[in-house]
């Protein structure tokens, strides 16, 4: 069963009333457990497409269906709740809440989901152990390296038990070692727990590890390749 169906999605922005197409007639389908990369040069539309999949932006045309639910028709507030329950986000700039510790950052999402305290505490400990940060649980983001912060961000994205994770250039700010480490963790989660990851990236290290590489050129899918 498909986790995500993107059907004929187009997005047109307007710059001083001049229409600027960002993505045009994109149709893609993602199944559970995919480890896919959306690639392409800057301005190719990969972040726009990721935003549309994540419900952060609405398409001008077409629809996005997540596990049978047409999310393009959801209201803003329903979409926020849908994201909370179904989608995990990892951003290029980590975007952790600076005043909270690693533990609290991961717990925060579950708190928004109103999960019981005992469950929150158990899952936080498990996730931070999985990303190798069990000894940094009470550390604040500014006391962690970029790689460590991004691992907390991955744990946070997973905390809500989402159907898939959208990662926008997750390795762009990381050195080689941290990037490799992060990719190892995400790979392991994908392999062992069948978690679906969709990246937007132009980092060759991510592209090499992806099972599926979708190339966007000027907002159009120019290739969609499965790789070992």
């Amino acid at each position, binding site marked *: 069963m498909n986790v995500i169906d993107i059907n004929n999605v187009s997005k047109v922005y307007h710059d001083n009333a001049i229409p600027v197409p960002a993505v045009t007639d994109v149709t893609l389908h993602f199944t559970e457990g995919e480890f896919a990369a959306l690639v392409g040069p800057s301005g190719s539309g990969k972040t726009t497409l990721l935003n549309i999949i994540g419900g*952060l932006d609405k398409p001008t045309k077409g629809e996005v269906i997540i596990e049978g639910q047409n999310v393009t028709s959801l209201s803003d507030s329903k979409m926020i709740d849908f994201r909370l329950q179904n*989608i995990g986000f990892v951003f290029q700039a980590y975007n952790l809440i*600076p005043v909270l510790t690693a533990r609290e950052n991961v717990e925060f999402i579950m708190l928004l989901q109103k999960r019981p305290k005992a469950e929150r505490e158990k899952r936080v400990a498990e996730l931070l152990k999985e990303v190798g940060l069990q000894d940094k649980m009470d550390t604040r983001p500014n006391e962690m390296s970029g790689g460590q912060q991004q691992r907390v961000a991955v744990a946070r994205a997973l905390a809500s038990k989402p159907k898939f994770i959208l990662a926008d250039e997750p390795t762009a700010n990381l050195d080689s070692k941290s990037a490799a480490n992060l990719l190892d963790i995400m790979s392991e989660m994908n392999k062992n727990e069948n978690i679906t990851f969709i990246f937007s990236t132009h980092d060759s290290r991510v592209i090499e590890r992806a099972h599926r590489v979708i190339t966007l050129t000027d907002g159009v899918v120019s290739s969609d390749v499965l790789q070992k």
Partner: protein
Amino acid sequence: MYLKLAWLNLWRNKRRTIIAITSVFYAVVLSVFMTSLQMGTMNQMVANVAGAYSGYIQVHQKGYWDDQSLDNSMVTNDALANTIKQAPDVDESVPRLQSFALASSGNATKGVMITGIDPIKERKLVNLEPKIIRGKYFGSDSEQSVILASGLADYLKLKINDTIVFLGQGYHGSSAAGKYSIKGIIKLVSPDLNKSMAFMPLKTAQALFSTPAMLSSYAIVIKDVDGIDRTLAYLKKNMDTSKYEVMDWKQMSPELDQAVKGKMASGSIIEGVLYMIVAFGIFGTILMMTTERTYEFGVLVAIGMNRRRLALVTALESLFMSFLGVLIGYVASMALVLYFVHYPIHMTGALAKSYEQFGLAPYIYTAFQFSIFYNQAIIVFVISVLICLYPLSKILKLKPVEAMHGE
């Protein structure tokens, strides 16, 4: 966790938070201090006249106030005295006999206001004893002596134990003449009164003016200045108003009442301007904070925090900030006002003279009234909370993609 998050967020940018708290702090201190000065000056104006001389309420024979002659004085009346005593908030009813006379000593003469007082009861109103700068207070209510205001004593070149002669008109045209020794000299705050007042025991004054057992007025000392209306209403209801008139200080000194109202109106305008300045100061800080954190707000909405919860956290931050500013400002303004209650601002030069021309002491007083503190604190708190609606409105309309792109 929302409370914790709001509290921690508050201290993320210490400088910004301190600036915002300081804005609220200054707003509270300035508004409290200004209002307190205004109220203090007004209270002092009223107290100089009503609280320290005329009494806040007086009872007279009907028609006395329009024609203040001894012929309109009233006979001492126990039933009337009892009615006054039973009125709410009445601390004392002080009997007085007042009239004008010519005072003479050597070659100097001067028109003076002679007030016959009950030496014991008068302690609760004019209370001459602590104002005595030379000599002593009356020992009985019939001794043949006077206490003079220092300005008058200086003018007549009189010292303690010297003799002063009074010449005037008594009851129903009789002549009033007598000589009295100077028992004490007092310094009155109001320069006008200090140049014209002479006090003598009530029975001595009644003998001088041939008005035995007669009074010009009962000046009423009340326990709670805010309760004047209550006392006034009781007296009007329970006294024979066909024979007696009851007047409060506003009726007796309409010019003072007008001055108080004028001062309050001008004070309100200045306060309004102050609130606007303060509001813009706080708004600037909040605007800065909102702009600075728009990206973060976008991220939080993106990861699934609904706008209402985000607005709640931001509102809590603003409430903490406003509350801290108000709390510190409240304490500081109390200390400041209290200091000036004990050490009023002493004016000198032309300003002092202008105060004296209006019969006021050359001091600026502050009023220590709890109502001022909490009223101003509430006003500033409400202003700062209203201003904080701005980030809330931004959050409730926030689009995560636009926020993260800094649009």
